[in-house]
């Protein structure tokens, strides 16, 4: 045996060598934190600042205190957006059971099932811009497939995207399409992780069909459900692309949501109110904060275990 591989002297070990383990993480973190702080964290606070100003994005900004918020308070368009946001939140959640349903349907082993699964997953991969376009045509009052189908039942035609009563539902339905695909894949992977022994125990315990699903399978899919919930909520609150592509918030603003409204007042063709937009963003942020806090809390509990 030789000991050649060993450090022969320890006296001139540098400070770096001794403290390597302590310093390395910070070196590794530095670029990431820098980027993230500059582009994400700081802007959040800046937005708070801007929301207290009157600023057209071109000239000088003037500090106006909470005036933007006061105006929001009495802005009917804001309430429309808020109401639509809630609708989005609520209805978007349908993607979860729908995704579960499709996942259960596809959770079989027959030849070619993998191809089927990936084809079912398509809508998620496609840009929302394209999805919006496709659904705009689907809803088209003149030639849209929807109205043709309604025609078979002697109903319609419905001008989905032009009617303030239907438009939000119409866009949400379009959004549900890719979102359902997303939830489906989450559940498919979740189903993979279901413990077969528990299923068998359930079979011995006489749990069948729905009861098996409810009592044995669903509880095991909780992680998948949780993630599906989180991504769906976030997707719902971030909804922008579809509205922008399908209706531009119309007709007369009835399909606006907060994220679109703020874009509209701040940066769109006719919008020059950065401060007001920022105020809307802050409200949206506060709503989202509830969910972020919930998510972080669950993660915290998980970590502490």
């Amino acid at each position, binding site marked *: 045996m030789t000991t050649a591989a060993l450090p022969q002297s320890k006296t001139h070990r540098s400070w770096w060598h001794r403290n390597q383990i302590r310093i390395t993480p910070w070196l590794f973190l530095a670029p990431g934190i820098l980027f993230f702080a500059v582009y994400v964290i700081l802007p959040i606070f800046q937005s708070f600042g801007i929301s207290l100003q009157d600023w*057209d*994005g*071109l*000239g000088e900004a003037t500090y106006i205190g909470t005036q933007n918020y006061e*105006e929001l308070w009495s802005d*009917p368009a804001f309430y429309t957006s808020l109401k639509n946001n809630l609708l989005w939140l609520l209805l978007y959640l349908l993607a979860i059971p729908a995704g579960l349903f499709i996942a259960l349907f596809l959770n079989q082993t027959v030849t070619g099932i993998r191809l089927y699964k990936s084809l079912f997953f398509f809508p998620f991969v496609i840009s929302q811009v394209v999805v919006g376009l496709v659904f705009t045509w689907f*809803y*088209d*009052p*003149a030639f849209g497939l929807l109205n043709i189908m309604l025609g078979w039942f002697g109903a319609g*035609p419905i*001008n*989905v*995207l*032009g*009617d*303030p009563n239907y438009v939000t539902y119409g866009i949400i339905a379009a959004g549900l399409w890719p979102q359902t695909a997303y939830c489906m894949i989450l559940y498919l992977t979740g189903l993979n992780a279901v413990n077969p022994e528990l299923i068998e125990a359930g079979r011995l315990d006489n749990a069948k069909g729905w009861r098996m699903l409810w009592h044995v399978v669903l509880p095991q899919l909780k992680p998948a459900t949780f993630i599906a919930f989180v991504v769906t909520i976030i997707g719902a609150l971030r909804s922008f692309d579809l509205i922008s592509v399908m*209706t*531009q918030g*119309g*007709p*007369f*603003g009835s399909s606006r949501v907060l994220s679109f409204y703020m874009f*509209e007042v701040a*940066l*769109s*063709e*006719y*919008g*020059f*109110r950065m401060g007001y937009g920022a105020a809307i963003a802050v409200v949206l942020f506060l709503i989202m904060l509830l969910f972020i806090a919930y998510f972080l809390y669950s993660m915290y509990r998980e970590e502490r275990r």
Partner: protein
Amino acid sequence: AEHTAPLSGDMTIFSDMSNPAPRAVMESLVEEFGAMHPDLNIELTVIDREAYKTQIRNFLTANAPDVANWYAGNRMAPYVDAGLFLDVSDIWDDEMSANLSSTKEAMTMDGKQWGVPYTYYQWGVYYRKDLYDQYGLEEPQDWETFKSNCQTLLDNGIKCFTIGTKFLWTAGGWFDYLNMRTNGYDYHMQLTAGEIPWTDDGVKQTFANWRELIDMGAFIDNHTAYSWQEALPFMTNGDAAAYLMGNFAVAPLREAGLTDDQLDYYQFPAINPDVELAEDAPTDTFHVPAQAGNPEAGKAFLKFVTTPETQTRINAGDALGQLPVNSQSSVDDDKFLQQGFEVLSSNSPGGVAQFFDRDAPAEMAKVAMEGFQQFMVQPDQIDNILSRLDQAAQRIYK
């Protein structure tokens, strides 16, 4: 003479002339101007017309070109106020002021000129002459005929007007005409300038007139779902008989197969005989941004664009197909351009407006046009709409 002054260095131009024909015009302009100044290195960036509207503010503040497209009237106010456009009064010499007198006003703010126009075009009613002939209808001269024509068409299962209000501004055109015909040009200007409240009786009368058409069912169904282009097929298919639109609609209508025998134009008829006729004629412009790197070249380009020869060429039927702004230019002998020129030069005693979203401040335009769209769908909401507009106006014009 000035054109020959040697220019050198780099020059950038941002243009919103993104549709095929205007784009070709823009490219030829650059080429020609480049040929005049061989030492000048010109870079042209063409941006989608709709996108351009939201992006101009960014590039004006960040990486300003030397020349940029925009619109006349109130639409340029934010940039003028923010000092982002260069004062180009110096190129508006006497000769130019004289030649461009019809649009000089629209380029002037605070007594200075902030750019130059390069084209404008008439609005009016484009209609299916063959359908009118079929049902024995004439171009209407007054409101009553206008409505009775419409009734006849409706009785035959044809909508009087096509329109696509998805992008709002088409409804603005209707409001412009109805309001100018009901209350006159000056009233309209005061309204868009915030000097008359939206709850004024005059405005209500305008909407009452509009409502007559709506109640008749004069407009196609589901117009909120369409852009202006998507509304064209209703006219080409014969489901609707007319379109209140700018002259740019002619090209796609012709492309869709309508011949000049089938398609014709008339001036929007009088409603209130006591007011003088006034027209919408939106003017498109060129500006030199305040932060331009090569303003001299920019100004030279502006000058070049407004010369009578250039004007004649770029507005010709095979180019933009619109009206030249220089009175020394000749108008193409296209029948629509001739009629439009005729209307604007001799039958618009009340005045020439830019267009609703150029006359009113941007924010107000947005809110108001949204109101128009809502009104067209929910006419019963008019009181709500008007009080909302009034509230918005109080804030915006403050």
